[in-house]
């Protein structure tokens, strides 16, 4: 489903070129759960941003569902994000002064599709928050906020879910709940790419990609 060939990403920082990602090559099959590990600054966020079509590679090719998305316009990349990709962030990133269900509806505004409140409500029920529809982000616990964020990521039915440290700001039990949810989604056949420091989280993954100083290597493939 994802084919990455010789992708590099070079930034200019204060006029000095910095290579955040160097000649990465790998595939991700549909239905995979792939963990990306690496210390901070290693380039894993850069990789995630490229996978999520928020950033474009300086060189190399990124094929998503067979289509080359390496060098698309802002409007085309936005359309791909809206249709194919769901983001989950470490700090949840729910919109302030906006209710749980309105947060879940947000991606539908930017997709060319009917806004369906019942669909958003069903998605909230799916993550176990049917009773929290009208609550504002500030009235929800961390675990609940992250579940709302997962419902938001799922609302446009994306093929690929990108989660950046989804349990990093959660206590153990809330983190376990969120991970359970992600595993359920994976079991349903959704492709998930997960960035994490957490060994326990990583231990559940069938594939782990290690990244160090912008260089990627396959760490293990479990049977």
């Amino acid at each position, binding site marked *: 489903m994802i084919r990455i060939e010789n992708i590099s990403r070079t930034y200019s920082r204060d006029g000095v070129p910095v290579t955040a990602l160097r000649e990465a090559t790998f595939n991700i099959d549909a239905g995979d759960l792939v963990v990306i590990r690496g210390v901070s600054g290693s380039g894993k*966020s850069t990789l995630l941003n490229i996978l999520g079509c*928020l950033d474009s590679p300086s060189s190399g090719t990124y094929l998503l569902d067979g289509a080359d998305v390496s060098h698309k316009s*802002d409007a085309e990349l*936005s*359309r791909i994000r*809206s249709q194919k990709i769901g983001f989950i962030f470490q700090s949840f990133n729910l919109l302030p002064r*906006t209710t749980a269900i309105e947060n879940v509806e947000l*991606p539908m*505004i930017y997709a*060319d599709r009917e806004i369906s409140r019942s669909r958003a409500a069903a998605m909230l029920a799916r993550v176990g928050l049917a009773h929290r529809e009208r609550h504002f982000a500030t009235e929800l616990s961390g675990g609940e906020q992250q579940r709302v964020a997962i419902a938001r990521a799922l609302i446009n039915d994306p093929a690929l879910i990108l989660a950046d440290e989804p349990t990093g700001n959660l206590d153990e039990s809330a983190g376990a709940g969120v991970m359970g949810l992600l595993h359920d989604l994976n079991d349903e056949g959704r492709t998930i790419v997960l960035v994490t420091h957490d060994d326990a989280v990583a231990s559940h993954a069938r594939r782990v990609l290690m990244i160090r100083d912008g260089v990627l290597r396959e760490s293990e493939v479990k049977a």
Partner: protein
Amino acid sequence: MNVLHFFRSIVRTLSRNKVRAMLMMAGVTIGIASLTILTSIGESTRRETMKRFKNMLGTFDTVIIRPGSSKNRGMVSLTNVEPSLKFDDATAIATQVPEIRQLAQVQNALDIDVRYRDRSGTPAIFGVSSNWLELRGDEVAEAEFFSEDDVRSLARVAILGADAQKHLFPDEDSIGKTIRIGDVPFIVRGVMVARGAGPAGGSLDNLIFIPVTTASKRLFNRDFLTMLIAQLKDPDQGQLAIEHIQTLLRARHHLAPGALDDFNVTNPRAVMAQVTTTGTTIRKLLLIVAILATGIGGIVIMSVTLIGVSERRKEIGVRRAVGASRNAILAQFLLEAVLLSLAGGIVGIALGIGGTQVVSRLQRLPFLLQPEAVLAATLLSIGLGLLFGVYPAWRAAMTNPIDALRD
């Protein structure tokens, strides 16, 4: 993009940031309100001034010839004019100046005692020719005006202005009664319809008309006129008529080249145009203040939106991540600014209409609401939102979502 839902989410965002929204609206509200009041009051002042001039002059298709080289301010009368304008001059102008349709002769005086039994007053006495009604467009409320025969026969007949009639005959019919103007008895022949206020706001109805010949020979014993009112065939030929009248009168008065005129000719249309445009210096100043206030309102929108853009970087990042393009972000922030500005404008228009009513009542002007002014204010507030919203919206659109999400 789902436009309807996009729009609704923007309204929701604004309604959940009420303090910010009201702060942003305030400047536009004040500016639009003062602009609405100023334009409405300005226009009704202009129309009222015009109406009062019309009250005084009757028609604008005239030129006025008065004796004396200086342009007398205020009301002329027998006591303050040179004796240079004669009856023969009037006849000459009426017959020899081609632009003139007809000419009214006036010999008037102030401070003449008028009595009826034990009541007395000092209305202005106007000796006029019998074409006065036709030339002025005035109307008689009771009975009739005097005729050409009355003028020829020096008849002692009087037509009372509405106020003079009320003063002398508070409780009884005046027609056919004998009043004394000075020491001369006159029979009341008719009563005029009230004309209302003049340019200075005073009454134009405290006066009595008598035949100009009677005034000259039986009352004042003066052979000169205080004013001639010449009606033009074509209202646009005022200047040409003035030149012909000047040439004719200078010849008749044997004035040497270079000598000053011993008369003056004015065109009420020109005078009124001057009056309605001058006297508005204060208005212009207030208008500048109002425009400044509106501009400041726009700048408030811009700065608060800019603050909003940096406060809402994370929101911008999230929206971009879930599929918003740069254009969608631009549209969102621009629409927020336009909606706020429009809302501020609408409140401003409402306050402006209320304010106009208060000011009109205080200044005793008719309340006047121009639909064009309301439309212009609405468009102006939309324009302000666009003008001052576009830069913050562009900044929002250019926000790098990766940086914004990392913050």
